[in-house]
Each structure stands twice: as structure tokens, then as C-alpha cells.
């Protein structure tokens, strides 16, 4: 752990693969900018890789005042240990007060390793980050301007606010899409600081033999309309109805966790706290009861239509239009109505 450092910067781990930044890192730069302004400190990104200096400018455009850039052939492709070494060294050296990571497979592999080595706290999958004060109930000691790490917990029945007032840095992971991606400002200026980190034999003990990446097949975040199905769809065969309606409205197919766990559709379709957060013009929720984790991922959609047989389903609390009925009957009627208008 590092000592509390009230002048410490707000950091973002900048995730890049194949010389391209993960969008979540840009979203987090915007959030870091906001937190840093509240704290009157600087926002910075850590960019590790090989020949990726150019990416610094995008990080700066999205809110970073500084980019710590570590350029090394050992960092060309992500491996846990060398990347953890970079982060731990730089955290120990510069003592940031906050470090944010995307809750991607890479971020979820890296961040806990760093937290353990630094003996610092880490909160996974936050849906909101704020700055606020905390009073210890026993001692009445007041800790000012902490990062409040907010996340649903326990099957979504509670929202927990987590803090970390003694073992800094305060660290959190955030899913892609949870923080809004602001437009970058190419005129923003920032500093690029080159850092050198030495690796030992253990850091390099894992060899990458072969690596394969697929282009993202569906892009829920970019979809203007999303038709999503949940447990209420019942089975994989009936999930075809969701595909059919999505086809009719020219939208993408989304799903609740229950539908993904039930094997109705692949995990890349999952909307919600542990999936993708979306803000389409229209979201049609079919047979989704609407646990808070799911609602957290879609409630900012401009228009929400909920179809559910259960009038008490929480999804109706965020809906603009509700249809209480059997989706097996309602969806074909919708498709028919759309085709009549076309």
C-alpha cells in the first residue's frame, strides 16, 4: 500500500491491444477528469506497450493531463506479470490516490494482482464513482473526499457503497459503457512522460505461443434499437422470436443474464452490470423481469418498452410503455404491425 496522498493524481490504466485503445479506457479518462476536478488534482493515464506512443494523444483528448508511457518489447502483448510490474512500480513511484481499470477480461486479470501486491483495496464492476466524505462510526474520524465506489451486490437486491480510506490507492474496475464516452477534444494539451521499468526472470516466465482475436461480431453500444430477451422467453427455440423482432425493427439482439445463463444466446449479447451498458433510442425488453443489474445497463435508453406477463415485474418501473401479456403472442403482433407500415 502507499500512504495517503491528497495531492495524488487520478489514474486510468489505458488498455490497448494490437495498437488500438479499448474504448472503456477513454470513457474512464472522462470520469477521471471529473473526479480529478472535484479533488483539484491532475488526471493521468498509464499506457504500456510497444510502439504505441501515438495513442497518448487520444487519452489526452479525452481528459488526461499526463500520460505515463512505458515502451518495451516485453509489453507488446498483454501478459499479467510484466504489466503488473509496470503498474506497481509506477504506483509506488508517483502515489496516485485513485486508479481505475476497465472491467474487461484483461482488466479483471490485472487489477486484482496489483491490488494484492500493493495491499490496496479494489472494488469490481462499479456502476458509479463519486467523491464524498465518510465518518468512521466507532471513532467519529472523518475521511474527506474519498472515492465512493457504488455497485449492486447480492443478486441485485442491494446497492453497496464501498470506500477505502486507509490503504491507498483507491482502486475500482468499471464495465465498458457504464461511463459515458464524451467527445474527445483534440485541442487539449497534455504531457507524455516516458518511464522505464525493469523486469526480472519471474515476470517473463509465461510465454505467449499463439494468440487469436476475433472482431467483435455485435456492437450493442452502437445499436439504435435493441430487442432483448430474458428468462421469460423460456427456451432457445422461442428466443428466435427475439431475433425475428430485432430483424423487423433493424435492431440488435440483447439479453439478460438469465437468458445467457440459460444458453438461449451468447454472452456477447448480455446487457447489464456484468454485460454491456447501452443507451439506444429504443429498448424492447421481452420477458425480462428487470433485476437491478440489468436495469443498470439499459435504464438510460431513450424509450423503453417492456413486455412481461407479470404486472409486478420491476422492469415496468423503468418502462415508458408496458404490455402485460404473453410475449409469444405479443411479438408476432408487433412484427405484423411493423410489416404493415413498411
Amino acid at each position: 500500500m502507499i500512504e495517503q496522498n491528497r495531492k495524488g493524481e487520478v489514474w486510468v490504466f489505458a488498455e490497448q491491444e494490437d495498437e488500438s485503445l479499448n474504448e472503456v479506457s477513454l470513457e474512464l479518462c472522462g470520469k477521471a477528469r471529473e473526479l480529478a476536478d472535484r479533488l483539484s488534482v491532475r488526471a493521468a493515464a498509464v499506457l504500456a506497450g510497444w510502439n504505441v506512443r501515438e495513442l497518448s494523444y487520444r487519452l489526452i483528448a479525452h481528459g488526461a493531463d499526463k500520460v505515463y508511457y512505458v515502451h518495451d518489447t516485453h509489453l507488446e502483448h498483454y501478459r499479467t506479470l510484466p504489466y503488473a510490474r509496470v503498474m506497481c512500480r509506477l504506483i509506488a513511484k508517483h502515489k496516485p490516490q485513485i486508479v481505475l481499470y476497465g472491467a474487461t477480461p484483461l482488466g479483471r486479470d490485472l487489477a486484482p494482482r496489483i491490488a494484492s501486491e500493493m495491499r490496496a483495496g479494489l472494488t469490481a464492476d462499479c456502476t458509479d464513482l463519486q467523491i464524498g466524505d465518510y465518518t468512521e462510526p466507532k471513532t467519529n474520524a472523518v475521511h474527506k473526499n474519498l472515492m465512493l465506489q457504488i455497485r449492486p451486490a447480492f443478486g441485485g437486491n442491494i446497492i453497496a457503497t464501498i470506500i477505502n480510506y486507509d490503504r491507498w490507492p483507491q482502486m475500482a474496475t468499471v464495465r465498458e459503457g457504464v461511463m459515458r464516452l464524451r467527445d474527445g477534444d483534440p485541442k487539449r494539451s497534455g504531457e507524455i512522460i516516458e518511464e522505464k521499468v525493469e523486469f526480472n526472470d519471474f515476470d517473463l516466465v509465461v510465454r505467449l505461443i499463439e494468440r487469436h482475436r476475433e472482431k467483435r461480431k455485435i456492437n450493442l453500444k452502437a445499436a439504435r434499437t435493441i430487442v432483448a430477451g430474458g428468462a421469460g422467453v423460456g427456451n432457445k427455440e422461442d428466443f428466435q422470436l427475439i431475433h425475428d423482432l430485432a430483424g423487423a425493427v433493424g435492431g440488435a439482439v440483447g439479453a439478460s443474464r438469465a437468458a445467457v445463463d440459460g444458453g438461449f444466446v451468447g454472452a456477447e449479447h448480455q446487457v447489464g452490470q456484468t454485460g454491456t451498458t447501452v443507451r439506444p433510442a429504443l429498448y424492447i425488453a421481452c420477458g425480462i423481469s428487470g433485476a437491478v443489474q440489468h436495469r443498470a445497463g439499459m435504464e438510460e435508453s431513450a424509450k423503453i418498452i417492456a413486455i412481461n406477463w407479470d404486472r409486478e415485474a420491476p422492469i415496468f418501473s423503468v418502462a415508458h410503455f408496458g404490455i402485460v401479456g404473453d410475449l409469444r403472442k405479443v411479438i408476432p403482433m408487433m412484427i405484423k404491425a411493423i410489416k404493415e407500415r413498411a
Partner: protein
Amino acid sequence: MSYHCIVCVKQVPDTSRITGDVMKPDGTLNRAVLPAVFNHDDLNALEAALSVRDSHGGTVTVVTMGPMGAAEVLRESLYRGVDRAVIVNDRRAAGSDTLATGYILSQAIRKIGRYDFVFCGRQAIDGDTAQVGPQLAEKLGLVQITYFEKILELSDRTVRLRRNVGNGWEVLETRLPLLLTVLDTANEPRPAAARRVMQYKRARTVGEAACEISAAMPDATEQKRDAEQAVRIEKLKMNDLLIEQWDLDDIEADLQWCGISGSPTKVHRVQSIVLTKEGYTELPPTEEGIRGLIHELIVDHTLG
């Protein structure tokens, strides 16, 4: 060459079967209404370890940390074929966050001794953090491979394996020992073997045995109960049915890194979810109602 495998497992509340009764009127959780289950991904971790032993020989030891009732997942593991089962049970471990949990498990694994592989499930359904595996690996000074899918080659001290990161996969090669977090798509966990259920359903920890004796002899003196307990434990031992139970002293844990004091993250506030019913327009599930809705969406350019 044979391999020693350790599997970390967790008993979790079945969050997929939450009902309205889970929140008490005062807004706190009513854990009693939630069934406790074997964390699903941990069954995949267990299967991965058992299959290493099946093909190369060696041992599988399963370890859990939790309240006394969590010994149930150890019995479930014994039914599936593990050689040894250990529970770390200590009130002082309560309130541990993922960092403190990783530390306590690392101390338990050090006490277990020799190992080549440590397997964990990818994540637990009650927190979904996926943090304990990497933190445990760091505490043990081990390489971690998360999102593990399968072993491609294992010879002597070198392993080549594949991990799946959602939008792709990687083949990695490294040396033993190492820690793996196992995906639920990695394998099909074997069911409990009937013969082993018959054999191990009476396996107990010291704590469980003491509880059962207290319940059976409510009016007996403490002395009498202790004597009865000693007999019971001797019998369990003889029949190889005593599940090892360790506390934080047994694993030489430094208390400053355990429980609440060992946990950097603290819960500041917990709010139960109150749904604000804002008005929505309800449409009848009829052709006419739906036609009207589609019309409205097209007119305001939401559709088309």
C-alpha cells in the same frame, strides 16, 4: 510424473433464486431464506483438477473458507473423488474482503504443503468479482492464468494451455507450479459417485460433530459431552471420515491481514432497492393496441 492439485471452492447463496422474502422489512438481508449451493464455476475447477489426476496420477485436495455449514461443499467434493478436504473456519475471518480472503487461503495452502496446480473457479456468483484467484496467486508468488480452458500439453514441469478471453484465445506456456481460474465452459463437471456418497455422507468436521452432539444431549454435563465428542472424533478418524478444520492460528495467519482489519475495502452504506414506480403507458396485448404503439414510434422517428 504425478501432480498435486489444490482446488479452492466456495459455498454461496443461490442468488439466481432470490425471492421477495430476501430483504427483511428493516432493509437487511435475510440469508436464511437463500439456499446455499456449491459455486458453479468451482465445480469446473474441481473437474479440471480431477482430470489432471485421472490422466497423470497424483492427488486432489479441496479447501474452503467459510462458516461451519460450508463443509457441505467439501462433502460434495469428496463424493466427486477428492483425496483430502480442509475447511478454514474462524470468526475472526468474518468480514474479509477479497484481499483478506486471498491471504487466508494462501496461508491454508502453505499449510497443505506441496502442490503443482492451484485451481479456482473463474468467479463466485455472490460477488462476481473474480478477484480472489489473482490475489491468491500473488500471495503465493505464483503465475496466474485466468479464463483457463484446457491443458494442451503437460510434461514434467512445463505446461502448455489455452485461455479464452471472450473475443479470442491464447496459447501460453509456463512452468509449474501455477494457479488457474477455470471457465464454466472448460469442462462438464462429473456428478457425485453413488458409492462415494455412501462412503462420505457421514464425513464431519470437528465443529459439526460437536454441534450434533450438543443437539443430541441437551441435558448432559459439559464433561459428558466432551467425552462423547472425543469418542465420536476418534471414530470419524478411524473411518477416515474426519474433515480437517483449521482456524487462523492453525494456518499461522497474521491477524492484521485477516477479517475486517485485513480488508482495505469497507462497506460505507447499503441501500435496498426501492423501485420508484413512475407512470408508464400500459397498452393492451391486442393487435389494435400494438398497432397504435408502432404507429407512435414511427411518427416520433424512434423507429425507421
